[in-house]
Structures are given as structure tokens and as C-alpha cells.
């Protein structure tokens, strides 16, 4: 509840004045910052109470001191989850799966509300916002004009109803009404953009650019089946039909057709349409050339042919006096990625051309150049020099997204750093992101996780474990939910610098990220814990962790975790080392129930345990158990038991039998 304001304010007013009065008397002057100065001096004085205290006579502050102090409090809170979630522990996403689930459910709630608003617009039309907020008004989604007219056609084009628009156009043409050129352009654009199909009604949040090249991404990216069915440009579809029926065709009509063909895969047709256009003595525009350049690598096979085609197009662009724009050059660079050996020189030439024309290269251009110079997996410094120059050029600049491909830059840049194991460069790339609002250029959550995954991987490999842990606290889980590979990297980093005492807390994190059902992570963790002997309290914590892991195995909700030889042995060893004898004895039956065989060390340690406890009956049972498992160490165990324990006659008899039985085959 809000505190009673008057009450608090009253209190501060009374006591604040009291404080200020006191301090004024002490210092004898009334400068603005005197109260903070005194408090700071008091704090310093407390710290250095052992040494002599020198209180300066006067402390001056710059004019911006308060602003700077306030600014230092505002930064990214590295412990907070993303802003779109509610600030509550129950409602915060702990794993990547939850992140996606919660953000999608919130989005679906919004689209449900939008549906209500749009289907009942009469309740939402009262507008009392000054200035008018268009995005909070209901949208018209249903058609209102039914008669055959150009207005109705325009309405259908605006509402993106492709088939309805085509029908209306056909009706208009049959009725003999002339349709204006503007509307025809709009219609052709619409049909070409959507490939003669109505756009999907419920467009969920687009997670991936559907034309992205890499189909191997699986994590965090639930692709719909429709993403794989790319629409292809059919022969003689409505766009072409309408185009052919037009009395006169101008550049924009050709432009719509060519761009649609390139977008939907009919590359050769696009080029033939372009030659048609030239034969009709029309000049193209910049969009046509952009489309053709991006289609050029598809229509030629050999590297130099591709490049020749592109240069040919650029020359024609020059002849027709069309000025290239940023996208032109970006498409050129993108095409160069598929031009093999020519790419290195030509891409640098292209960059200089861009600068000569005064077009600043964006992140997408640099990404293409980097891809040209970097070969994944090859040895030697590939791409590092280029990246260093790029980073130096881009430092301290604010980026805006000018090309959809911009968002791929950072993931690829950090991959270059990772392949070359260059930590300094990685830090520089990261500083680019932390500058201003450049974090937006990391792309959607999937690309962000790829970037941070690679960055963290590099850190775990190269940095000291303290720095790794500092970054761990900083970026996890507010920016990045580590995948199993990331956790294994972290375990390895801890191992390298022998900070294995942190393993139990890492196990807690593994559980909260939902990776406690991944067998390889659990195996790694257990083997690291068991490998060496540690001090007593560390062993205690390891034993507690081992019990926790055991309960995870027992719970086994997703039935992906199965007890293996090593995991069972490790858990038992850890329990033994911490002297948790009861739990250790409970582990032994699990071997039998899971059809696993305990190791020799384990049996020996159990025997030593029995010796310290003095339970000879248990020792005999142990040797019998090892015989049941047909372990080769049974005779040694029996001999040891006979030697070390005081046994009854029966027990001696059993043991000597086992010793003899085991002894024969070995002779």
C-alpha cells in the first residue's frame, strides 16, 4: 500500500531541516553539495579509521555531478528478466522454452483483444486522445463496398484480399470500366507480392525470415510446416494474365512482375521479362535492378559468368542513369559470396564504390564482406584483419536497421572471433553492442541466443574462471539461457582453474535451466565431482548434490535419464566419501534393479567402510553380492574380508568357498 504521503513528508520536512541546520553549523557555509560531501567524508572516515583522518576544508563538485551520479544508477539491470515479462518470480521465465511460451501467450492475448476490437468497432470509436492515436482505433477488416467499382477494388487492395481484388478487377474489365493506372499498379504489386495467394489470416509473430538460408537451426525455433512450402511462381498466373491484357505497360508494371518473380523463385522468367522491357524501350528503375542482381547468381553456373552478369547489369544501370542505393550494393556483396575466388578483390572494390557514391555501408554489407573472407574451419587468420578494421570503423556509432540482413552481422562476427580464438576482438565486438541502443541489432531471441552462446563459449575457453563467473552472472539468465553445450563449457572452465567447489551451485542452475534431464551434462558433472578428493566441507556439499541428482534420476519425468554404470558408481563414491553410509548402502540395490555392475574400486571402498564400521555381516553380504555380479575381484574381496574381519564359522565357510570358487578360473 502507498505510505500515507502527508505523514512521511511531514517527517522528512521536520527532520531534514534539522539535519541541514546542523551541517550548516558544522561547515559554516551553504554550498549546494555540502550535505553529500559530508556524508561522503563520513563514509571515508569510517573506512580509514585506523589511519589518520584528514578532512579537507572544502570539497568542490562539478556542475554535472548530480546528473552523473544519477546517470550511473541507470544502466541495464543484469539480474532482471526481459522487460516484456512481469516482475514476479512466479511469472519470470527460467528456461528458453518458458521464454518463448510466455512471450507467445502474451502475444496471443493481444491478438485476441485485437480480434474483439476489430469485430466490435462501435465500442471503440470514441476518440478522446489528443493528439489522435491511430494505432488504438479499430481497424476495418471486413469489406464494406460490394458494388463493382474502382473504389471497391482499391479497398480490396488495401485490405490485402488478393483473390477478391482479382475478381473485382476482372468484373470491372468485363463491364468495360476503365481502371486507372495507379490502381492497376497497386493490383499488380499486390498479386506479385503475395504470389497470387491470400496472405495467411492469423499471422503469428514472425520468428524467422522465411528466406533465410540456413535450414539447420533447430533450437528455440519452432518452424511451422508452412515455412517450408515456399510459394513458387506459377506459369501464367493472374499477375501475368492481367499484365498481358494491359493496353499499355509502364515501368512500374514491369517492376511489380519482375520483383514478384524474383521473390518467388522464377529467376529466368524475371530476366526474360527484363529483356522484354528493354525491347519495348522502357527504362528500368532501381528496384528492378536490385531484384535482378539478387537473382543473378541463380541463373549462371560459373563464378566468372555470375560476376559478368552482375557487372553487365550495373553497366546498364549506369547507362539508364539510375542511381544505385544501399540495397543495390548489399545485393552485389551478397551475390559475391557465391562467386568464389573473385569475391575478395571485388568485394573490397564494391565497398570503395559505395563510399565514393556517399552511401555508408551498413552491418549487412560488412557481414557479406566478412563471410567472403572467412572460411569456417580453415586454419590461419581468416577474417580477423577484416573484422578488426570493421570494428574500428564502427566503434562508437549508433546503428539503425537499414537492411533486413543487418541482424546477422553480430552472430557471424562473434563466430569469426570464436574460430580464431581472439578474445580481444570479441570484447570489441561486444562493446559495439553495449553502445547506446545497438543491442536491438542482435535480432530476434534466437539470433541473440546464438550470439551469446558463442561469446560465452569463447570466454569459457580463453578466460580465467573468475572473469567467466563474472560474465556468467551478468548475461545469464537475463540475456541468455545456456544450452547443454554451454553448461558443459562452463564445467570445463571450472575444471581448468580448479574451482570444482562451485559445482553444487552450478547444479542448481542446471536444474533451473531445465537441463537436469540431459544425460551428458549430468555425467560430466558427476565425473568431475568424483575425480579427485576434496576437503571435508566440499565433500559434504558434493554428497548433498549427489543425493539431489539421485532424486532427479528417480523422478525421471521425461524418462530421458537412465542410470549408467558410471553415474551409479560416481554417486555412490561421493556418498561414501562424505560418510553418508546409510544412503550409500541404499545405492547398492539400485545396481541390481537397473542391471548395472559396480566397479572394483567401489566394492573395495565398501569393504573398507564395513571395516571402519565393524559390521562383518555386511561385509559377507557384500562379497556375496560381488559374486552374484560375477566380478573378477571376488576372490580378493573374500581374502580381504577373511583377513580383516572377525567372522563366525559360517561366515568363514562362505567366504572361503567364494574365494576358492573365484580362484580357480584365474589360475
Amino acid at each position, binding site marked *: 500500500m502507498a505510505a500515507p504521503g*502527508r505523514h512521511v513528508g511531514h517527517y522528512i520536512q521536520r527532520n531534514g531541516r534539522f539535519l541541514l541546520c546542523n551541517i550548516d553549523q558544522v561547515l559554516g557555509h551553504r554550498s549546494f553539495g555540502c550535505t553529500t560531501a559530508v556524508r561522503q567524508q563520513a563514509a571515508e572516515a569510517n573506512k580509514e579509521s585506523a589511519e589518520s583522518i584528514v578532512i579537507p576544508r572544502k570539497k568542490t563538485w562539478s556542475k554535472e555531478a548530480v546528473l552523473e551520479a544519477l546517470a550511473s544508477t541507470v544502466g541495464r539491470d543484469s539480474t532482471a528478466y526481459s522487460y516484456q515479462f512481469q516482475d514476479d518470480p512466479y511469472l519470470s521465465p527460467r528456461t528458453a522454452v518458458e521464454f518463448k511460451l510466455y512471450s507467445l501467450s502474451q502475444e496471443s*492475448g493481444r491478438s485476441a483483444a485485437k480480434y474483439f476490437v476489430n469485430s466490435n468497432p462501435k465500442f471503440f470509436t470514441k476518440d478522446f486522445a489528443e493528439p489522435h*492515436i491511430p494505432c488504438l482505433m479499430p481497424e476495418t477488416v471486413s469489406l464494406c463496398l460490394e458494388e463493382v467499382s474502382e473504389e471497391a477494388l482499391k479497398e480490396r487492395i488495401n485490405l490485402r484480399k488478393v483473390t477478391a481484388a482479382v475478381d473485382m478487377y476482372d468484373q470491372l474489365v468485363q463491364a468495360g470500366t476503365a481502371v486507372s493506372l495507379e490502381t492497376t499498379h497497386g493490383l499488380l504489386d499486390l498479386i506479385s507480392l503475395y504470389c497470387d495467394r491470400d496472405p495467411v489470416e492469423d499471422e503469428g509473430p514472425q520468428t524467422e525470415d522465411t528466406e533465410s538460408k540456413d535450414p539447420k537451426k533447430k533450437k528455440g525455433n519452432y518452424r511451422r510446416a508452412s515455412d517450408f512450402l515456399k510459394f513458387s511462381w506459377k506459369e501464367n498466373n493472374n499477375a501475368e494474365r492481367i499484365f498481358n491484357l494491359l493496353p499499355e505497360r509502364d515501368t512500374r508494371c514491369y517492376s511489380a512482375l519482375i520483383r514478384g518473380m524474383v521473390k518467388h523463385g522464377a529467376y529466368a522468367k524475371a530476366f526474360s521479362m527484363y529483356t522484354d522491357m528493354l525491347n519495348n524501350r522502357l527504362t528500368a528503375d532501381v528496384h528492378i535492378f536490385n531484384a535482378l542482381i539478387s537473382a543473378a547468381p541463380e541463373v549462371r553456373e560459373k563464378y566468372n559468368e555470375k560476376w559478368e552478369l552482375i557487372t553487365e547489369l550495373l553497366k546498364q544501370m549506369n547507362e539508364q542513369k539510375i542511381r544505385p542505393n544501399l540495397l543495390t550494393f548489399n545485393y552485389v556483396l551478397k551475390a559475391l559470396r557465391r562467386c568464389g575466388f573473385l569475391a575478395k578483390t571485388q568485394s573490397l572494390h564494391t565497398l570503395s564504390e559505395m563510399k565514393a557514391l556517399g552511401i555508408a555501408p551498413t552491418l549487412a554489407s560488412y557481414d557479406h564482406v566478412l563471410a567472403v573472407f572467412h572460411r569456417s574451419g580453415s586454419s590461419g587468420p581468416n577474417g580477423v584483419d577484416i573484422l578488426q578494421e570493421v570494428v574500428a570503423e564502427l566503434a562508437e556509432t549508433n546503428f539503425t536497421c537499414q537492411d533486413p540482413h543487418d541482424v546477422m552481422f553480430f552472430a557471424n562476427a562473434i563466430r569469426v572471433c570464436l574460430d580464431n580464438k581472439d578474445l580481444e576482438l570479441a570484447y570489441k565486438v561486444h562493446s559495439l553492442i553495449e553502445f547506446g541502443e545497438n543491442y536491438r541489432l542482435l535480432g530476434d531471441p534466437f539470433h541473440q541466443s546464438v550470439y551469446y552462446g558463442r561469446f560465452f563459449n569463447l570466454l569459457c575457453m580463453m578466460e580465467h574462471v573468475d572473469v567467466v563467473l563474472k560474465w556468467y552472472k551478468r548475461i545469464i539468465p537475463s540475456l541468455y539461457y545456456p544450452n547443454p553445450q554451454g553448461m558443459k563449457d562452463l564445467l570445463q572452465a571450472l575444471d581448468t582453474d580448479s574451482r570444482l567447489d562451485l559445482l553444487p551451485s552450478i547444479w542448481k542452475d542446471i536444474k533451473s535451466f531445465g537441463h537436469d534431464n540431459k544425460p551428458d551434462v549430468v555425467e560430466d558433472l558427476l565425473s568431475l565431482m568424483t575425480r579427485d578428493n576434496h576437503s571435508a566441507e566440499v565433500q559434504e556439499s558434493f554428497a548433498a548434490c549427489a543425493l539431489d541428482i539421485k532424486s532427479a534420476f528417480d523422478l525421471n519425468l521425461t524418462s530421458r535419464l537412465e542410470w549408467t554404470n558410471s553415474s551409479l558408481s560416481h554417486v555412490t563414491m561421493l556418498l561414501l566419501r562424505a560418510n553418508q553410509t546409510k544412503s550409500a548402502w541404499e545405492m547398492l540395490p539400485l545396481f541390481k534393479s537397473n542391471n548395472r555392475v559396480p566397479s572394483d574400486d567401489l566394492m573395495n571402498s565398501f569393504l573398507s567402510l564395513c571395516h571402519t564400521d565393524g559390521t562383518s555381516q555386511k561385509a559377507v553380504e557384500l562379497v556375496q553380492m560381488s559374486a552374484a555380479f560375477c566380478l573378477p575381484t571376488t576372490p580378493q574381496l573374500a581374502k580381504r574380508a577373511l583377513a580383516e574381519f572377525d567372522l563366525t564359522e559360517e561366515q568363514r565357510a562362505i567366504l572361503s568357498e567364494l574365494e576358492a570358487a573365484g580362484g580357480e578360473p584365474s589360475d
Partner: protein
Amino acid sequence: APSSPPLPGGSPSCRRDRTAGDRSPSCGTESRSISAESPGCCRRAAGFPAERCRTSPSSPAATPSLLLTVWTLLTSALARSSLLCSSSGLRGLHVTAACCKNRAARIRIGKGNKPLTYEQALHPHHIGHRKGWLSQHTSNLKGEDGAADRTVEDVFIRRFMFGTFHGFLANEIVLKRRGNVLIVCAIMLQKMLPQKFYFLIGYSESLLSHLYKCPVKLEIQTLVDKAVYKYI
């Protein structure tokens, strides 16, 4: 402004302790029979809890006969007026002063098994002293207008949240207006999966924004159970 519906105006005698059965539209009259044997004392009608009965202002020294004649005159006069006449025939006459009891936003004590939150346990006169305000806006300052509109919006938003998150609200909604933004703060119970919470949160935010043409934000905190302050 806290909810405290204005009492129906009129003379103090109109304010009565309203029991469950008393729903008379006129200034709550109850049948009171004045026995001739005991003129000075008042009788508690059935269903009234402990009231301070004040004796009638007339002096005890008045003669019974005078009182009787006055009374018959009054009743005959009252009987003629159809407004006050009802089936029992003796309504509309108050011979004791009304007991001006406050009932606003107070939960009456029971057997000790009814849990109350802090908000419910403290009465409206504690607002500003031990309680805060549930709706914060500047329309009640001098020279500002729009208080009525804000109140109507608040009522709607409270009902909307009560209905959308039915059964999940642990306490009253707090509404804060800062600039253009309307912030709805609610404490909810963890009875639903988080993804369902987020669906409803996205839905409410979007719908309310479209309705009121301003950004509406929800700030939700969750509890396992309602926070009980005391049992009444």
C-alpha cells in the same frame, strides 16, 4: 477517492441501521409501537442490534392523557397520508433519535473464522493514516478537472479486472495514472499456469488501451495465498 457512497440525504432521522431485511425505499421507517403503559421508554424492534436508545425528548412529567391525545391526533393524520401508510398502519413515526452508525466499507465481526486482508480490516477513516489510496490521479487537485470521468473509468476497470481474472485477485486493484499512462497494479493468486496469466495480461492491456486510448500497463505480483491480516 475511496468508495464511500453518499448516504441518502434528509433528516438525521432517516439514517437507520439497515439490517438485511430492511429495504424500505422511504426514510427507513420501522414499525414502532408505543405502549401506553410506558410512555417514556423506547422498545427495540426485532432484528436491531445494540443501539443506544435515547429516551424521547418529552419530559417524563407529562401526563399520560395529554400524550395519548397527541398520539391519536398524529396517527390519524399520518394514517391519512398514503405515502407513509403501510400494511401495519403505524409507520412513519419516530419517537427516538436515529442511531447514526457508519456502515461504509466495514465488515461486521463474526465468529472469528472470517479472514480479512489489511485493506478490508481497516475502516475508511483510516485512509491517509493507516491505509493508502486505491486510485491515484491528479484530478482532485485545485484547478484540475475530470475527476468524475476518472472515477467512472476506475469503476469500469475494477469490474473488468474482477471479471477477467475472476477468482484470482488477492486484494483490491490499485490504479495509478502517470502522465498518459494508466498503470493497473494487482496482486494475484498463483492458481493458474504462467502462460495463462500472460494471455490474460496481454488481452487486458490491449483491450483497455484500445478502450481508453492511452497506454495501459499491468503490474502483477503473485502470492500463494491471500495475505490474511486478521480473523473476524
